[in-house]
């Protein structure tokens, strides 16, 4: 029983990281931008949160957890949105190729994060790792009262606030995209920018906004990884990059619906941690187990192209730059 509970807990924590990443990327892709810079953006979010928390804690006598959390979240969001802005400027205004720009952003974001992450470790004394205990503690504060409700409490209420924030953002994103007029206009931009343009929708503005806000949301995944998953430390182990690509996979798995991404992310979490709990696995067959999320995503990708249902397809103009030719 405790095994199963701890598996589910691990899955939810793991899932939350990629749920942020995927929700942000869904918003971005709905505008027609395929941003392969998600790993880089999550890196930026993670390091910005960590650095801001580090300096706040280092320079304040009695750091307050709430201030630290707010500051780290804000910095993570802004830094990631800035990454989105670089991508937007290059692909939307300068019409650079989206795939190549996204990959470059991943290299750049990873470089910035690991550079400063490594330097922070050095600043902290050169030995061991830095830690931002107060901030990380703030992020990991469980809901008071509810987490003691036995199994239910352990399963559903034993997490920091960002687990719930991720769910809320995913639901709000879904609501925005399907139920609001602005969401409708945004989707039109991603499906058919020519039609959207003719209907009086500002294609450029919509793409910029969706990409930058989407990047901001994705970046929170990096923040959660740093503050909760690794408990306020930094390791140059490429952990965020792997999770970033998994977030891109999750977008496909969820067929571009952020509500699907909620359970999809936990499923990915389960699949990724399952090896730990399946008895009798050798170390090598564990690695085969970890392939599952990607294999499942490939299967979904193939199925949606076979079934060819319009609702499950990627946005029709995904990956293409829009240029209203000289009329």
């Amino acid at each position, binding site marked *: 029983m405790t095994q199963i509970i701890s598996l589910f807990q691990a899955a939810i924590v793991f899932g939350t990281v990629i749920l942020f990443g995927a929700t942000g990327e869904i918003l971005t892709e709905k505008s027609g931008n395929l941003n392969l810079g998600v790993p880089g953006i999550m890196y930026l979010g993670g390091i910005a949160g960590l650095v801001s928390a580090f300096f706040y804690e280092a320079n304040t006598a009695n750091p307050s957890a709430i201030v630290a959390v707010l500051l780290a979240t804000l910095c993570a969001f802004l830094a990631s949105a800035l990454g989105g802005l670089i991508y937007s400027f290059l692909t939307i205004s300068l019409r650079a190729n989206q795939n190549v720009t996204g990959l470059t952003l991943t290299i750049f974001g990873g470089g910035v994060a690991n550079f400063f992450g490594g330097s922070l470790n050095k600043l902290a004394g050169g030995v061991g790792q830095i830690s931002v205990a107060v901030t990380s503690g703030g992020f990991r504060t469980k809901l008071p009262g509810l987490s003691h409700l036995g199994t239910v409490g352990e399963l559903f209420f034993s997490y920091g606030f960002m687990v719930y924030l991720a769910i809320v953002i995913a639901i709000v994103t879904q609501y925005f995209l399907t139920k*609001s*007029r602005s969401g*409708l*206009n945004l989707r*039109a931009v991603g499906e058919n920018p020519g039609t*959207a343009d003719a*209907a009086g929708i500002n294609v450029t503005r919509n793409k910029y906004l969706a990409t930058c806000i989407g990047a901001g949301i994705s970046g929170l995944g990096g923040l959660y990884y740093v503050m909760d998953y690794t408990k306020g430390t930094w390791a140059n182990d490429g952990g965020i990059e792997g999770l970033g690509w998994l977030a891109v996979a999750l977008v496909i798995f969820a067929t571009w619906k952020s509500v699907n991404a909620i359970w999809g992310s936990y499923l990915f979490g389960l699949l990724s941690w399952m090896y730990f709990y399946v008895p009798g696995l050798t170390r090598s067959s564990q690695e085969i187990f970890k392939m599952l999320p990607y294999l499942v995503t490939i299967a979904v990708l193939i199925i949606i192209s076979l079934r060819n249902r*319009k609702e499950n397809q990627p946005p*029709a103009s995904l990956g293409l730059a829009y240029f209203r030719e000289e009329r």
Partner: protein
Amino acid sequence: MVFLETATAVQMKDVTKRFGEVVANNKVNLELKRGEILSLLGENGSGKTTLMNMLAGIYYPDEGQIVVNGKDVAIRSPKDAYDLGIGMIHQHFKLVDVFTAAENIVLGLEEKGKLDRKAIAVKVKEISDKYGFDIDPNQKVYDMTVSQKQTVEIVKVLYRGADILILDEPTAVLTPQETDKLFAVMRNMKADGKALVIITHKLHEVMDVSDRVAVLRKGEYIGDVATTDTDPQKLTDMMVGHAVTLNIDRPKADKLTERIEVEHLTVKDKDGINRLTDVSFTAMGGEILGIAGISGSGQKQLLEAIAGLQIAEEGSHILYKDPEGKEHELLGKNPLDIAKMGVALSFVPEDRLGMGLVGDMDLTDNMLLRSYLTGRGAFADRKAPKKLANNVVDELEVVTPSIATQVRKLSGGNVQKVLVGREIAMNPTVLMSAYAVRGLDINTSYTIYNLMTEQKMKGVAVIYVGEDLDVLLELCDRILVLCGGQVSGIVDGRNTSKEQIGLMMTQLQDKEAKA
């Protein structure tokens, strides 16, 4: 007071629009009144759509004045047009496939907040009931027939409060029943005091639905006439003008041999709509067979079917009879199969840089397109194509810096010469061309005509799809007229009048009789 001010909805005064050298509209005057349906009539390229696009905010006029509701206005975007109550239903629908009707209708409206689907559905229903539309607000566009999509476009315009509606060839894609329904709706809108313009080539529809007809020809405004005061013959005369003598040489070949026999050819597009219906004819070696018709009447599908690029319905046949008299079925084969069967078939498609040539490649490599598989080994032989490119440049006087220039950098006429030159160099027994002189100057056009005739005299079966009736009548031995994907007749090029063909293009003879 309202009535006085708005009796005239739109006035266009001396409106001119140029695209580069081409004058699309030359000092056109047009008046549109409330509570009337105006037909805008003219051949392809006569400037009808361009003129209306200036009302819809797609183009901005170079000269002239547009007056809407008595006010001098500048319309620079579709949004400006909407604000003035002008809505245009384009030939190519601007709809998002995965959205519902209702979602498409409210797209881009400047209202914030929640998308209240119920309220939208109520308003859509109101509009539908008022004018007699049949529309389900929750249906997805990809599930709709063409007619339903068109309905969404019209309701979209009405939803935005348009009282001046422009419909660009709305019946081109509709069945007769759907057309009747559309016309009923149009009459309801007219009764409601709206002003409507319908762009069309179909004379019986003009007679059927409109109150007044305005005619354009080659960008010039010819005149307007009340529908009750005219008939299809008079309208055709206005539309095509008097025959012009071009002095194209038309010798007769010594011998005619059957080369291609098309039998009961039916082709559907991916939406399941018939683009060609039961087309049968024979093309002879030693003659030029002209294909006339309003553009989009199935010309493209016909040529592509012969070239092995279309899938035809069951029961269709295209037989090729080689010089030895043997017959080969061409349907179901791809271009390479056809070539391997020894059928020398040359094809100059309408879309020169999208199908016939590769714009990014130079002349030599474009010559290679038809011959890259020749010769043994893994490498493509570029010697022969290079020689061919030089020959084409010399013989057809192609203006190009060198044969290493990318073809997309050449002018339209030179691009066409490269394409025609390559196709003729294949020593074809069948030569097909679609709009071979579109966009070319007079001299180049004559070069092309002469090349066609030269091929004909060599015994080649030439199929020439054209749009200028004067040219068709002087160049071709026989002319097949297509109307809505059906053969409306095959006539002798030497003793048929322009008016006769014009009439056949716009109405099927037997269908008209039934109606």
